[in-house]
């Protein structure tokens, strides 16, 4: 997918950021409104796929120099750690904790360990989806 179409590339960059920001938004609102780690992760993936369409694979690897398998693994660790924290308190696995805090700027906000778990979900979705797409795209 080599193209030198500057307009497409520029548009893609812009759209990428819009989708990416939207995905982050969706991710954070997930606990109260439609959205969450899955959708957020998938949207981010969609954004990266868009970049892939505009640039070639190598460029993307330069822009996003992550090993996405490792991203997946980190996501898993995060999710597991959130869930497994309960083991140390000897309460059933996956027992979440949350509380409401009054933070500057945000006002009254709930901080919820479920969010931490959801970010694990987000990372795994992005990591493995990109791994899949990169692998297929990179296979000649």
């Amino acid at each position: 997918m080599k193209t030198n179409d500057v307009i497409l590339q520029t548009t893609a960059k812009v759209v990428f950021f819009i989708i990416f920001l939207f995905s982050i938004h969706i991710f954070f609102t997930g606990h109260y409104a439609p959205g969450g780690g899955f959708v957020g992760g998938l949207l981010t993936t969609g954004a990266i796929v868009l970049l892939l369409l505009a640039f070639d694979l190598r460029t993307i690897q330069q822009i996003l120099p992550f090993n996405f398998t490792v991203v997946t693994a980190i996501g898993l660790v995060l999710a597991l750690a959130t869930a497994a924290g309960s083991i140390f308190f000897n309460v059933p696995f996956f027992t979440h904790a949350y509380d409401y805090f009054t933070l500057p700027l945000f006002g009254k906000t709930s901080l919820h360990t479920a969010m931490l778990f959801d970010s694990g979900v987000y990372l795994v979705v992005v990591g493995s989806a990109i791994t899949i797409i990169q692998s297929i795209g990179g296979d000649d």
Partner: protein
Amino acid sequence: MNMINLLLFPIIIPFFFAMVLLFFKEQVVVQRVVTLIGLALSLVASCWLVATVKVEGIQTVTLGSWPAPFGITMVSDMFSALLVTTTILLTFFIVVYSFKSIGVEREKFFYYPAILFMITGINGAFTTGDIFNMFVFFEVFLIASYLLIVLGGEKRQLRESIKYILVNVISSALFVIAVAYLYSVVGTLSMADIAMKIAEINQPGIISVIAILFLIVFGIKGAIFPLYFWLPGSYAAPPIPVLALFGALLTKVGVYAITRTYTLFFVHDIAFTHQFLLVLSLLTIVAGCIGALAYFDLKQIIIYNIIIAVGVILFGVAQMNTTGMEGAVYYLIHDMLIKAALFVLIGIIIYITGTSNLREMGGLIKTHASLGWFYLIAAFGLAGIPPLSGFLGKLLIIKGGFEADHTVGSIVILASSLIVLLSVIRIFIYAFWGEPTQPLPVTNKGTYRAMMMPAVALVVLTIAYGVGAEWLMPYMSDAANVLTDPSIYIDAVLKE
């Protein structure tokens, strides 16, 4: 110390170690060592679990501290605890066997993480007390098995993997719709709750219909007649350690799921559902016997013996009496161990001779006597010759059959033992007796010895399992008690 999360450890520990391994993709030694440590820790946890269940009864934890039918409950009764322990135990030996046989390339490409993920899924499926969660765990071990079956990308592997994945995608879709139907009628997902609610409405016809659908779904995984056809081809494709894992574990999850659902909640129309299961189990045995005799290929012979065993176990389950159930549990665990042992042993034979075709072998007893004798012991164990491991389970199963007046069925099972014996003795006679037909390919003595170690360990384990039956019987009866009296399970989950 009272650990309420103890029953999760055999699921979480392999998962954790699998994650860790993802960070060390290229370091083969790290992969091996970490895998073994992970399995050893899981084994400790599962043994501890068995001991706890023995003393304290069924262990449950409803995740997230939610009350029982609303959160996902994990339930470890003796049946599942024993299966979990057996799974980890034999995986340990197969992993050791892999060191010399799977090849470095595969080891660098997620072979060990895939095994650990698969164990996670299998143990999860054995432990979960939630029907949808069971689907998720099925998917976990299935996707890991897709990776294992195709890993290496050899021609034959690819051809059979695509069929394997196709069949499983279909059965997964059926699983989902079965859960959906059930949810529609009883409005719940927790298995204990389902059991209670089905009892409440006294299993109307629609539940029996759904019961049959579940039987079919799990029957595809467990390879019962007429849903087993995909299995022989697919299982023969991957390398031996993978085949050993599949043969010892995967069908057993299907068998477990049938047993669980058919003893916990679909128990109010036994005259119909269990009779159906009984007929299918006998047909499964017949079909397996045909296949076991039809081939002169080492792998195929043992693979078809998986199918026979599935039939035998389910026949025991279908009796719905304590004797039959004890037999089924005993035989199920026996079969997991003995299949692992046999696959590993034939793997060594294939390594030595360079072929899996029986007709191209001969006279191995001269050069590899110990292999021959261990194979023979395993073969007799499989056929149910006392005091080896296969005997007692089969005895209890036929006794259960006679007690339930299923005389013909019991005699069919007895006769099938003869076919099993014939099929495995044929391997002994062709491969070990007679004259060598062609010069053996050059093989490494050290590799051979390293491969023999886990094989011997597994065979010794099966012998101990058979001879030490007295120590095991209390565990078997605990397992069978829960299976014959669902209220124990229901109370453990719902009455906190």
